[in-house]
């Protein structure tokens, strides 16, 4: 029985990857355009903004918190760039976006760690406030972006399209931060068991605070990459994006309860979602079924994860006496 469970566990553990491979095969069989190099490049370009956002979300989720404000944060930073920096070179805009994102994250982090308000409520309120400020600044008009930003979309770095380059930079930084630095490992410790972390003398509040700041920064960068692609933003820009980011992270194996997940997984989740949409597009599926298929895949992945957790719990049930030899 135990061996059977272990084998099942192995399958469940890799379920999202298996799901991904199945999708590739299905789409590949249905259209020969799917397996083109250009198509994969497009998928990654399309996935870049949401993936960057989701990477930031990963930090917050790893500590067991949530950030619902990233979509509005994205909108507000875009408004600021369009309204106040039309003649500035793009690096200045990018810097402004990062600084503003960090500030928003700091407000969230402050309210959660110092005022002791639940992150769900803090960031829900910020969702309203930030969007309101953005609409106020822009007078709820649709804003156009200057050429120096729009040309970024076609620019390449070392032959890599700018969106993919930005995505790679954020990914590598986040990966290094989470896996190679003391801070990153302490993020996992805090999310895994806040009480033990406190007992071990870790600066729990500071770690949570910094994670919100990072999520804010990623929202700014993700928004910036996205505006180079779409060129104009209306008052609905970034609406519901927070849910897409959470979905990508969860699909990639990040736990909502903290302590489990990786940026690699999150990126995989974001690409998986875009692949589904791209594949449906290529096989000329009814556009109405896109959200249905996406939702079904998220549901499936999380249901599998739930089953996996149950099996692990059963396997790890405390034993009092030695088990008979397996």
């Amino acid at each position: 029985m135990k061996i059977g469970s272990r084998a099942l566990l192995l399958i469940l553990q890799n379920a999202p990857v298996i799901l991904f491979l199945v999708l590739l095969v299905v789409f590949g069989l249905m259209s020969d355009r799917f397996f083109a190099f250009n198509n994969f490049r497009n998928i990654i370009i399309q996935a870049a903004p949401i993936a960057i956002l989701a990477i930031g979300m990963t930090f917050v989720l790893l500590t067991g918190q949530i950030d619902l404000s990233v979509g509005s944060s994205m909108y507000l930073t875009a408004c600021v760039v369009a309204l106040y920096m039309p003649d500035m070179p793009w690096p200045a805009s990018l810097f402004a976006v990062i600084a503003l994102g960090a500030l928003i994250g700091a407000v969230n982090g402050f309210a959660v760690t110092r005022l002791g308000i639940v992150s769900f409520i803090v960031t829900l309120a910020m969702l309203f406030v930030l969007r309101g400020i953005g609409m106020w600044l822009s007078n709820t008009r649709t804003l156009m972006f200057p050429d120096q930003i729009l040309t970024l979309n076609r620019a390449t770095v070392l032959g890599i399209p700018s969106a993919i380059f930005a995505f790679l930079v954020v990914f590598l930084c986040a990966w290094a931060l989470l896996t190679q630095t003391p801070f990153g490992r302490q993020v996992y410790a805090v999310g895994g068991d806040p009480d033990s972390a406190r007992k071990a003398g870790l600066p729990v509040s500071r770690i949570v605070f910094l994670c919100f700041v990072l999520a804010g920064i990623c929202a700014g960068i993700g928004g910036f990459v996205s505006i180079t692609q779409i060129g104009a933003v209306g008052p609905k820009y970034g609406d519901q994006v927070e849910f897409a980011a959470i979905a990508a992270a969860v699909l990639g194996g990040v736990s909502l309860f903290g302590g489990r997940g990786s940026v690699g997984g999150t990126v995989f989740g974001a690409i998986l979602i875009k692949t589904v949409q791209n594949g449906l597009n290529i096989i000329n599926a009814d556009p109405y079924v896109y959200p249905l298929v996406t939702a079904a895949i998220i549901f499936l992945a999380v249901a599998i994860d739930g089953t996996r957790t149950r099996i692990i719990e059963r396997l790890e049930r405390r034993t009092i006496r030695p088990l008979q030899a397996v």
Partner: protein
Amino acid sequence: MSTLLEVSGLTKSFFGVTVLHGVDFVVRPGEALGLVGENGSGKSTSMNILGGVHRPEAGTMRLDGQAYAPQNPKDAISAGIAFIHQELNLFPNLSVEENLFVDAFPRWNGLPFIDRRAIRAQTEAVLHEVDLDIRPSTPVARLSQGERQLVEIAKALSRKARLIIFDEPTTSLTRPEVDRLFGIIAKLKARGIGIIYISHALEDVLAVCDSIAVLRDGHLAGAGPASEMPIGRMISLMVGRSIDTIYPDRQTAPGKQVVLAVEALSQPGVAEKISLEVRAGEIVGLAGLMGSGRSELARMIFGLDRFASGTIRVNGQPLDDPTPEKAIEAGIAFLTEDRRGEGLLMDFTIAENTVIASLDSVAGPLGILDNKRIASVSREMGRSMHLSTDKVEETRVKHLSGGNQQKVVIGKWLRREPTLFILDEPTRGIDVGAKQEVYRIINALTARGSGVLLISSEIEELIGLSDRILTISRGEIVAEFNNRPFDREAIMAAATGQRAWEGASA
């Protein structure tokens, strides 16, 4: 001979109750001191003082000849004192090496990156010292309980601990793991590290320790080299107090009818072919160490945990695939050992808790609750339980004392007039007066014809109350004692897994 730790005249009281009366003991480098005593004898208080959690009112501690007065747990750690608790303080989602250094990672060339090579080398070194052959990058989640404990020891070594305190280290270990642990402890001693070993498993204490100190009611009841402390002597020092007075006389004798019949209950790794019977009006005591499977057995009968095979009958009726709902319907009540987590809804009022397991009896048509009736039955419960307050509708149970909380738990179940009451540690953490109340209630219960399955860590309590005592060890019933007066040494020995006492079983 030099001493590592010298404790003298340690005194401490909580809320006016003195729990430590001038306790002295000494730990020498390279030696293990066994600290034994029943729950509430002062073991954990003295260890909390040593660990900087509490401060003593009187008494001194000297570590390596220096005065030692920790103000907080950090002081204790930096002084070289490490605790290996029953509940380990590891992060299962991190690797072994990361757990060792999580609060102080070495940096790589001054950059903000972890020096992986350094922590790997240091981890490998300490893992080697505890004979743990795993890769430092293994996630702790994949380790067995025994391996995790060795990781904790390795962590202590990596922090240059001079004194390591083990608190019930063997309860969740398998026998080979226990042997392995003892080997490591011997190695630690050889390196000159001092050990304090706390356990209810007296056999283990003898196997590990060089000297033994026995605590009873906050006093040092006796101390000496292990060679002069056979198990029998330890037990009589531990339970030395006269106990006849606090246990009320039983007016009625057990009946004939079997209210609970468990047959060949098995669950891999937890229980092996457990069979037992409880008759109407009978109190059956279940003696065993923490982690022996005694609570797990109760949880399986009540439908909280699953079991692989075996049958349970209540009043002759089979209880198949039990769930708590079915078990309650069949007439079982269960007082769990975790009063705050499972016994009560701490934010609810006394009245709400009183009726929570018997809502059907206070609900009218459409399930509408009769608040007047709830108030009156709750007040009635409060009176018969001698509760400290009669404001049952206003008082939340979290504001009650432990003893009063326990009375509410019992009162809640008595409303169902159970045919079988399973009591798991009914008097843990409550004062003597409340204990007597609980004993009185248990007796009254049997007089009404209910059967009782009583689980307790306190042997005297079992002896004072039970008609029959079963001992359980590592998931098996190992002995049965049928006749008063019970031989407490024999029961304790059987519960601690002493094969020699098996002859005593009837």
